[in-house]
């Protein structure tokens, strides 16, 4: 299986040194364990129930192979995904070895390790990063944990459903900010993605034969 690393913000030269396949495994492991940590703060499955409760039958993006951020999600939600890129290449060799051995020993990365590293792994350079096509709505603070609220706009039948999504966005945004900031000293950003265009589908970290 071949993997391709598309997002521009990755340091490709370091990915090549580690090896693309191992790099992907390290990313998946780190992301999984960080999501596990987040899941102890927020029950992300309950957000799905909340979105259903708003009515409006908001269609989720059903394809789990959709992209890296969906495929390897362990948050358990159909709507909310961790959207940060996972910059393993920003870690020291020693820290990368910690992840390697936790994979080999089937152990979860401990909180102390995650707390010491997550800003280097998740944050991007500069002040803002464009997560998607260059529009204001996709301009995200670089130093933030970024979640994606995604839905399949192509499957909407009524224009009024868009107002339900606006409402869901506002309430979910407030909720996750409040809860996570109790535990972590970081900015939180909720990005809305309507699956038009499917730019992440083939142009993010994807797997392919």
């Amino acid at each position: 299986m071949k993997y391709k690393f598309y997002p521009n913000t990755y340091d490709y030269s370091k990915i090549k040194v580690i090896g693309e396949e191992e790099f992907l495994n390290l990313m998946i492991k780190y992301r999984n364990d960080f999501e596990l940590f987040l899941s102890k703060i927020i029950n992300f499955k309950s957000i799905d129930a909340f979105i259903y409760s708003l009515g409006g039958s908001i269609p989720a993006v059903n394809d789990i192979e959709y992209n890296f951020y969906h495929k390897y999600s362990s948050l358990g939600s159909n709507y909310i995904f961790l959207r940060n890129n996972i910059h393993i290449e920003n870690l020291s060799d020693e820290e990368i070895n910690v992840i390697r051995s936790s994979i080999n020993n089937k152990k979860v990365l401990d909180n102390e390790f995650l707390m010491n590293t997550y800003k280097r792994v998740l944050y991007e350079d500069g002040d803002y990063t464009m997560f998607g096509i260059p529009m204001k709505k996709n301009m995200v603070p670089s130093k933030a944990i970024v979640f994606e609220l995604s839905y399949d706009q192509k499957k909407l039948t009524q224009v009024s459903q868009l107002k339900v999504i606006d409402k869901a966005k506002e309430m979910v945004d407030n909720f996750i900010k409040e809860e996570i900031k109790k535990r972590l000293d970081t900015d939180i950003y909720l990005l809305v993605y309507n699956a038009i265009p499917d730019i992440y589908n083939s142009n993010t970290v994807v797997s392919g034969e």
Partner: protein
Amino acid sequence: MSMINSSSKKISLGNHDFGTSGNYGKIIKGKNTTVTFNDFYEAQQTEELVFDDPNKNETIEPSKSDVEIAYERQRSEVKLKIDALNAKYDSFVNSYLEANGNNMEIDVTSDSKFLEEFSKAFNMSYEEFQKSLEELQSDLRLIDAAFMANVFKNSSAKDIFKKGAYGGNQGNVANLVSAYMQGYNLDAVKTKQAIDMVNMIKKYFPYATDMDVINISEAFTSSGCGYVAMSNALCMFLGNMENGSELCKEKFGFDLYYVEGEEKFYNIENMALTMFLDRFKDLDTSAILDPTFAGGTSYSYYVSEFNDFLHERGLNCAMSRFPIDLSSTDAMDIYGLPSFSKVLQEYMTYYSGSYVLISSEHFDLAVMDEGDLKVESRDSALSNALPNGNVMQNVGGHAMLVTGIDQSGNPIVSSWSGEYRFIAESPARYFQQKPDEARLALEFFQFSIIEGE
């Protein structure tokens, strides 16, 4: 007074692929491969530059204005002086070498015999000679810059490239259509623009549901950069024509601009949307919304479908594409910018009704006026402070209209209705890291009216 904000913003792109893909057209007579920048420059100098014109329509050249004629005269006077000095220098060097043995190598800046004879022949020192040549070159740049500024001041460009709305923005299509369809309040001009866009979508896709209309506008926005870059140029061309607004209404089916008070609002986005819709008019709505749909532009789109679109409306566009070989040492010359900016400047100021798009992947843009990407209110004079930050790094595949050239030779471009400085050396820098992906091409376009229309 301009203030430098300590929290100047640095922006990078986490994802890319929003538009153009490389497609290499015919370039220079007799050549059909990637050319180096020097080939390009020499071809331009020797008038070998030819335009792709697949339909070979008879076209008429736009007539030159008094300002253009005055500019060309002023420019050629200086150019003649430069050429005369260069010719005199060449002939002096030739005769000096003949007299002193042809194969010798001399350092003209330090060889005392050469410098002495030079002073006698020219009545000035070699250093003074170089200085006067540089002064003339600088005069030429000033004449060009003044002309370009004048072109902008006295043309539709002043209404199209405004502070805060520097050219069209593909995002406006999705924003306005969605807001209008949801019944949100828009101001008078935006309401008219939104209605035009909705009507245009329904004209091409009569069976589209309300949600389809919104989704098609989203699909356009995601791949709209190449259409908007071209629409900026086309609207500018139409705006500069005496009967351009009538022509737009008659042939394209909508108003070229709306007037509110004393301000003109060009319908650049609707023009871009119309190009997009016309291109995909034979598809079903569902095909446009399919995940595999690729609606972005490439040079081949301009050559074929876009030109067909224009021909049906009585216009023609001659075009030429110059991919720049970023691996060659010529590309590295771009670091110094001399030939790059010279070609752009000469082309943009010399040919009437001509426009240049930059099509690139992996490059940096310095923000001059943020347009839609405005994050905070700031003095536009800040542009001089930009090297300290405020750079959009590593932008993905994108097309932009060149609107000018700054003092150091970097092109100024319109993108996302913001004003940016294209850092000309950046693609060659990214090429070192990503040789398979980094690319840079200049695309030259010249509109004209088809005779008899």
